[in-house]
């Protein structure tokens, strides 16, 4: 211990000066119902309860002064390193102070089948504290601000039951073997000096409209963390991917699993709302909902990795949750299939780094986006290809999708990028309509959907001709983003993936060249040309994570494995130290931007890795033949 170190832990908190950490400073933990963002400084800055898209209890991420946080850190924090325990979503952060090192192990408990007999809180975040080296003053700062910081809960000390925090019908308990006291209404603080090897526990538990369940501290809590680790390990053991960068693929799969809602099978696009996609808040959106497109892609990735149960759950969710709109599909639903996701602004929150507005709900829910039919049918097609069974109702639903595509494919729409200007004929939407019809014909052949095959064949051909006539720019030898336009769109890299064109077709090669030349920056891609002309939204556009992974996928399909590998490696470096991605990369610094972590980008990583694996195997096969 240094001579200058304090002899006792501080009695009162030093005045806190909170800052907004960079987005890459966050790690995530969760229980497949909700997600917490934990910063490098041991602060839980985002947690919504009881589920992903419910109001927040901690939202310092979106307002450092009002939002609320839950911090465990050394009083004299210097820096930290962190990692997940292998093949889990249990996060370990090692924080250094001048006198020692503190290790905080954060997890949200998962309940295994064999533990159901044990009464457990609805949600339980366990934070294990251990002095790893030296002697260290640790402080705990607990500032819950439920209902997006609109409510200030009453905190009551219940003695050995811990601190009780009620808000409307909800209740949370904070239990700890570190003494805590109320330093301001709705704020708890405690500090303690720990020596090497000493351990403490802090448990935050939550119940909605129910009798609270309390966890006894001590060995039982350690066992619950171990059980959570086992749960994640067992889940990962189902993954049969053995290709390159397995750890990165597993981390992406674990992140996607965190974003899936276990009670319904829905998968949300990201864990947060309103993290800015640029230097202004013009592009602040709420991504805590289930986009059918994103979910379909996630499920295709899960199937590719061997997680079949998740794809079955999603199909079941799609069947039941979309009942209100079938056979038409809405772009997004909430985790239970709710269709009204009206966008609102929370004016009392300043936004991440004061880049408001903070939005909840999403105005894009009412848009027409035709590509979602293709994504949904493609998921069902892959499910059947892998031996899955569709019952009579599911088949009927698919036929309904087909009917909608036949009726609507000639209409303009908002497209994959949810353009907020006037609807137009987006090439990617037409491509996915073509994909929907093509896969339905294949499914009909395989399991008998009772389609009017001649009509479907005819329309399939019409879509192809339509795309070739209106989206192909002969002068540039490339397909462009929308009919009548001249700009490329990175989503068209998927034309080869969906079988519309062969990867080595000169038009596909030309499209890729145009995308790389006009959308590429240091090898990474914009999704479309930056500026307001393409999407009609103010604020600068940045490099889009999944598009760069799509380029890897395309290059691998083309057989350009060396370039694909180089780009893939480059993208791996751009993840944060935990292997997590946001939606975009800053065009200059390449720092992550936008909601975090983002399912779409992690799907891209898995897709690209699988294509690379296949390409490498193919090349090896050819070498063996030679």
């Amino acid at each position: 211990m240094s001579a200058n170190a304090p002899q006792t832990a501080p009695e009162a908190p030093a005045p806190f000066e909170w800052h907004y950490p960079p987005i890459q400073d966050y790690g995530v933990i969760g229980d497949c119902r909700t997600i917490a963002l934990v910063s490098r400084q041991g602060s839980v800055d985002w947690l919504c309860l009881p589920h992903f898209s419910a109001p927040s209890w901690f939202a310092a991420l979106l307002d450092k002064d009002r939002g609320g946080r839950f911090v465990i850190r050394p009083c004299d924090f210097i820096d930290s390193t962190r990692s997940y325990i292998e093949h889990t979503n249990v996060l370990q952060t090692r924080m250094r102070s001048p006198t020692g090192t503190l290790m905080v192990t954060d997890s949200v408990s998962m309940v295994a089948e064999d533990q159901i007999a044990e009464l457990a809180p609805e949600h339980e975040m366990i934070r294990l504290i251990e002095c790893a080296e030296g002697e260290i003053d640790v402080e705990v700062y607990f500032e819950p601000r439920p209902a997006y910081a609109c409510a200030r809960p009453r905190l009551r000390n219940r003695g050995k039951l811990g601190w009780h925090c009620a808000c409307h019908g909800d209740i949370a308990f904070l239990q700890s073997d570190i003494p805590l006291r109320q330093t301001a209404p709705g704020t708890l603080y405690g500090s303690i000096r720990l020596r090497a090897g000493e351990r403490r526990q802090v448990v935050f538990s939550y119940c909605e409209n129910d009798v609270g369940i309390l966890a006894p501290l001590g060995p039982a809590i350690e066992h619950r963390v171990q059980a959570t680790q086992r749960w994640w390990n067992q889940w990962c053991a189902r993954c049969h991917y053995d290709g390159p960068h397995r750890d990165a693929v597993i981390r992406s799969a674990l992140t996607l699993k965190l974003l899936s809602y276990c009670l319904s099978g829905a998968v949300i696009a990201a864990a947060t709302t309103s993290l800015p996609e640029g230097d202004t808040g013009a592009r602040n959106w709420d991504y805590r909902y289930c986009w059918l497109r994103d979910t379909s892609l996630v499920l295709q990735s899960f199937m590719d990795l061997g997680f079949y149960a998740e794809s079955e759950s999603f199909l079941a969710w799609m069947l039941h949750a979309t009942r209100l709109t079938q056979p038409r599909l809405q772009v997004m639903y909430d985790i239970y299939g709710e269709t009204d996701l009206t966008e609102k602004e929370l004016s009392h929150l300043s936004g991440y780094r004061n880049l408001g507005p903070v939005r909840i709900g999403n105005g894009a829910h009412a848009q027409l986006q035709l590509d979602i039919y293709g994504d949904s049918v493609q998921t069902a097609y892959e499910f059947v290809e892998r031996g899955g069974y569709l019952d009579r109702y599911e088949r009927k639903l698919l036929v309904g999708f087909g009917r909608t595509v036949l009726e609507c494919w000639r209409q303009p729409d908002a497209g994959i990028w949810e353009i907020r200007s006037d609807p137009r004929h987006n090439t990617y939407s037409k491509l996915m309509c073509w994909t929907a019809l093509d896969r339905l014909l294949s499914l009909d052949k395989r399991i008998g959907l009772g389609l009017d095959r001649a009509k479907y064949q005819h329309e399939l051909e019409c879509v192809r001709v339509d795309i070739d006539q209106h989206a192909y720019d002969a002068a540039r030898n490339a397909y462009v983003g929308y009919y009548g336009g001249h700009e490329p769109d990175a989503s068209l890299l998927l034309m080869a993936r969906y079988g519309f064109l062969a990867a080595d077709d000169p038009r596909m090669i030309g499209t890729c060249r145009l995308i790389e030349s006009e959308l590429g920056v240091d090898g990474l891609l914009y999704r479309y040309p930056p500026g307001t002309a393409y999407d009609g939204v103010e604020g600068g556009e940045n490099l889009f994570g999944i598009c760069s992974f799509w380029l890897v996928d395309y290059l691998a399909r083309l057989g350009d494995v060396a370039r694909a590998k180089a780009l893939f490696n480059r993208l791996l470096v751009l993840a944060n130290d935990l292997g997590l991605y946001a939606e975009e990369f800053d065009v200059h610094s390449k720092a992550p931007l936008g909601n975090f972590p983002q399912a779409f980008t992690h799907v891209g990583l898995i897709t690209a890795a699988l294509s690379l694996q296949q390409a490498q195997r193919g090349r090896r096969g050819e070498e063996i033949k030679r």
Partner: protein
Amino acid sequence: MTPAAFAIMEILLWGLIATICMGAILFASQNLGWSRLDLPFLLGTIFTGERHAANVLGFALTILIGWFIAFFYYLFFAAIGQANWWLGAVTGFVHGLLVLTALLPLLPYMHPRVASEYDGPSARRRLEPPGFLALHYGYRTPVVTLLAQTVYGAILGAGFELVF
């Protein structure tokens, strides 16, 4: 049908109706966020720590206990020689007060899975104790409980008026 058998049928019928109405009020107030008191769950967890089983078992126990208490209401009305809805409501209100002031605060000492504020939670005792007037389950809990018990009593009083 003998008069005794008829009376038992009436008790069972009105006991069931009163219990269902009381349960509905408690259930609605729980889901509206007014109270976290979950009577079936508390009853079920006397016998099992498995949440789903506790809810199912607790529901059955709630009905059985509702019937059982309806017999005492019947005996009380028979003893005073009259029954009507307001007398039933007053009886139910007093019953509710007894539950809030005597029965629920004793729960940590009687219920095998309710934690005590003196000892803290243990591996077995994990349920939050109700506290004075069950205020730990939300500050509207006493009101909701009294309302539910009053309705229970009023329905029994009105039902038994037909018997006497």
